[in-house]
């Protein structure tokens, strides 16, 4: 047993190291800019005095490693500095929006994960049937759609008639039930986009195993098709399925960017897009760091879970 925990500990260590390097990249990327950052943001017309003042404000007069350490330790305590655009503390900008974004992502995940696993298992069970072919073509189609296309179609079909609001305007006072109603269309958009991918991968992971001798053995023992899939194929397909679920959850977190813009939903994604347009780089850095951290953590969880799902690793010789 201890071997497996050493492996898990190693993965965790690697995850933390990855996060550290990512923070370096996110911070260091600004250093890549040719010329002076302050000048490039203020434009050619700025006077040397304004540039100097702006440099001081950005802390550019300090050496890079000092600035990085200040930034990192600040971020660890929830202090991301102040926005260039409106001079407000970034932490204030982020806090409520982070909750909104997580809410939307979890909402979509709660629908799409069970749905896609069930559809994937069914498609594998009835493989090459009309149901499977139709589900496959439909999935392929919906994977190919840009998110904003799906979003506008939903608005066109469901919001036109006034069934659901086309704008997900929520604030801190919005109740849970109302949140669910108002964010239904964005959540449905995300669900449609990720379900197809997860379903296809679940189906493929199971079908890959159906040619294995141990599946043939189960069938030759007279087991029913459903039992063959659930008891014999699924436990061995867990690792790829977990990976693909994590990948899609991670995608949900970043996929919200476009969806939030379409539905004017006050989340992190919208904040990021606005800040990119304004070149408000401290905000972009902060949001990028949060997205990247969520992404790394999800992948790490998937990695650990799929290690734990492998009997060869859990029960050593």
């Amino acid at each position, binding site marked *: 047993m201890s071997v497996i925990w050493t492996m898990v500990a190693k993965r965790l260590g690697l995850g933390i190291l990855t996060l550290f390097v990512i923070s370096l990249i996110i911070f260091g990327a600004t250093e890549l800019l040719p010329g002076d950052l302050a000048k490039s943001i203020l434009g050619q017309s700025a006077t040397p005095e304004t540039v100097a003042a702006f440099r001081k404000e950005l802390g550019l007069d300090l050496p890079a490693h000092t600035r990085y350490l200040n930034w990192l330790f600040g971020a660890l305590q929830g202090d991301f500095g102040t926005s260039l655009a409106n001079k407000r503390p970034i932490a204030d900008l982020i806090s409520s929006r982070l909750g909104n974004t997580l809410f939307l992502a979890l909402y979509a995940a709660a629908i799409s994960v069970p749905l896609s696993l069930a559809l994937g298992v069914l498609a594998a069970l009835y493989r090459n049937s009309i149901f499977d072919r139709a589900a496959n073509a439909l999935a392929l189609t919906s994977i190919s759609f840009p998110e904003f296309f799906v979003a506008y179609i939903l608005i066109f079909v469901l919001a036109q008639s006034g069934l659901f609001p086309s704008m997900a305007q929520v604030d801190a006072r919005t109740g849970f039930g109302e949140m669910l109603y108002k964010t239904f269309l964005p959540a449905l958009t995300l669900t449609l986009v990720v379900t197809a991918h997860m379903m296809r991968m679940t189906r493929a992971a199971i079908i890959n195993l159906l*040619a*294995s*001798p*141990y599946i*043939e*053995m*189960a*069938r*030759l*023992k*007279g*087991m*029913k098709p459903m*039992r063959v899939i659930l008891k*014999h194929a699924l*436990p*061995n397909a867990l690792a790829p399925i977990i990976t693909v679920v994590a990948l899609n959850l991670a995608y949900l977190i970043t996929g919200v960017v476009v969806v939030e813009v379409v539905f004017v939903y006050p989340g992190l994604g919208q904040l990021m897009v606005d800040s990119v347009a304004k070149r408000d780089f401290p905000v972009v850095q902060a949001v990028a760091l949060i997205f990247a951290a969520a992404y790394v953590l999800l992948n790490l969880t998937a990695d650990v879970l799929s290690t734990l799902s492998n*009997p*060869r690793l859990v*029960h*050593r*010789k």
Partner: protein
Amino acid sequence: MTKTEKPVLLTIRGLRIEGRSDETWSEIVKGVDITLHKGEVLGLIGESGAGKSTIGLAAMGFARDGCRISGGTIDFDGVDLRTASEAERRELRGQRIAYVAQSAAASFNPAHKLIDQYSEAPVQHGVMSKAEAERDAVELYRRMRLPNPDEIGFRYPHQVSGGQLQRAMTAMAMSCRPDLIIFDEPTTALDVTTQIEVLSAIRDIVAQFDTAAIYITHDLAVVAQMADKIKVLLKGDEVEEADTRSMLSNPREDYTKSLWAVRTYARPVQPPVTGGTPVVSVKAVTAGYGAVDILKNINFDVYKRRTVAVVGESGSGKSTAARVITGLLPPRQGQVLFDGKPLPADYRSRSRDQLRQAQMIYQMADTALNPKLRLRELIGRPAQMYLGLQGKALTERIRDLLHLIELEPDKYIDRLPSELSGGQKQRIGIARALAAEPKFIICDEVTSALDQLVAEGILKLLDRLQSEFDLAYMFITHDLATVKSIADEVVVMKDGRVVEQGPKPEMFQPPHDPYTELLLSSVPEMDPDWLTRLLDERRRKANG
């Protein structure tokens, strides 16, 4: 009551099975009849493509994906498996007809414990409760002579060795006490010394429960030990059927006779080498990966026009020895001499001429030939690289080489490997080695993936080429029959050490090293009483 007087259990009449390739169906089993009585064991033998596994599965009313049963009747104890519903067939499978697959390691589900897989069929078919099934499992593990029968079931498949898994699988097949078991090459993947234990355990348990069986194998000597009667198949057709003893002593058909005859080929005994420098000399080599030594102080020489067979079971280190000689694995200690001069340990430091002099032929021609290159380039490349041949001269050389390996140049020169048979691919491997005009060739299990008749042809070809071009061979094999037919000298390896070495005639005469003795005595013989006699003998020795 003899077995043929017992009631009939399985009657197959005019069985036809089709297989699909490239969207078209072609017949792979062409009208086979089988009659099996209760408690009777039928051996199905034939080379690859004979359709034996397909027929075995059809006896369970089962066809693999891409196959379909297209004609005939399969009557199992009054039920026609072709017309029965899928539910009826499921009811029979696992309960009254069971299956033992070739590779137990692949056929056990890696996610579940052995005992859970044992109890699945009895519990799901409603024969026993889970607790009863687990008690029964321990009992059958004991009867299959598995070590620690009380405990072994609680392990996962990857925690158990191949020979033990194969016995656990036979026990699992027995769990519902079926009337019929299909054994599909159950010992083919095992080493000979392990094979004996599995064969004897299978034979005993089938006799104890009076179970009928269809025993599928390509190994005549094995089927001779197991079956009451033998049916010979060729390309989906029946050649002949007879009871085991008369089939062995008096085969009627030419094809059967040719199968029986391949084991008799042996090259003429060569006079012993006196003096001279060996072409290749392995001196005190110790090598391995990481911290583990796979080879421990190995010494042997290979002389011009001589074949040294390196024999051992899996894990003995024989293939590692080849990797040291080719320079893929530099040794920790010792060295390899070529014509008396030391070879650089790493192939990357060897000169082009040193690389040219030592060539290799691989076990699996499928992976040894680049599937995207035509024979012209596969064979021509070494000639072009080492000998600088170009244009017309190169084409002439390629044609010569194709002649040498008995393939018609005009027909084959522009083919891809996928357009060749297994034996032809192996011949291309030989031609590629010859194209470099080497002095020394390593043959790594070159015949073990081939049918016996095809393998025979390859061995004869290698023999002829050796005398024609004064080649020295190092022949890696696990098969003592191959050693008998081709070796001049034998090196027996076990756990990375050489346990015995010397000229072939000496090696097959006692006294032996105990391991060589075990290895030699474990090779099945065509005598139906061989296994019984051998087990008696070993029991006598063990008792004193």
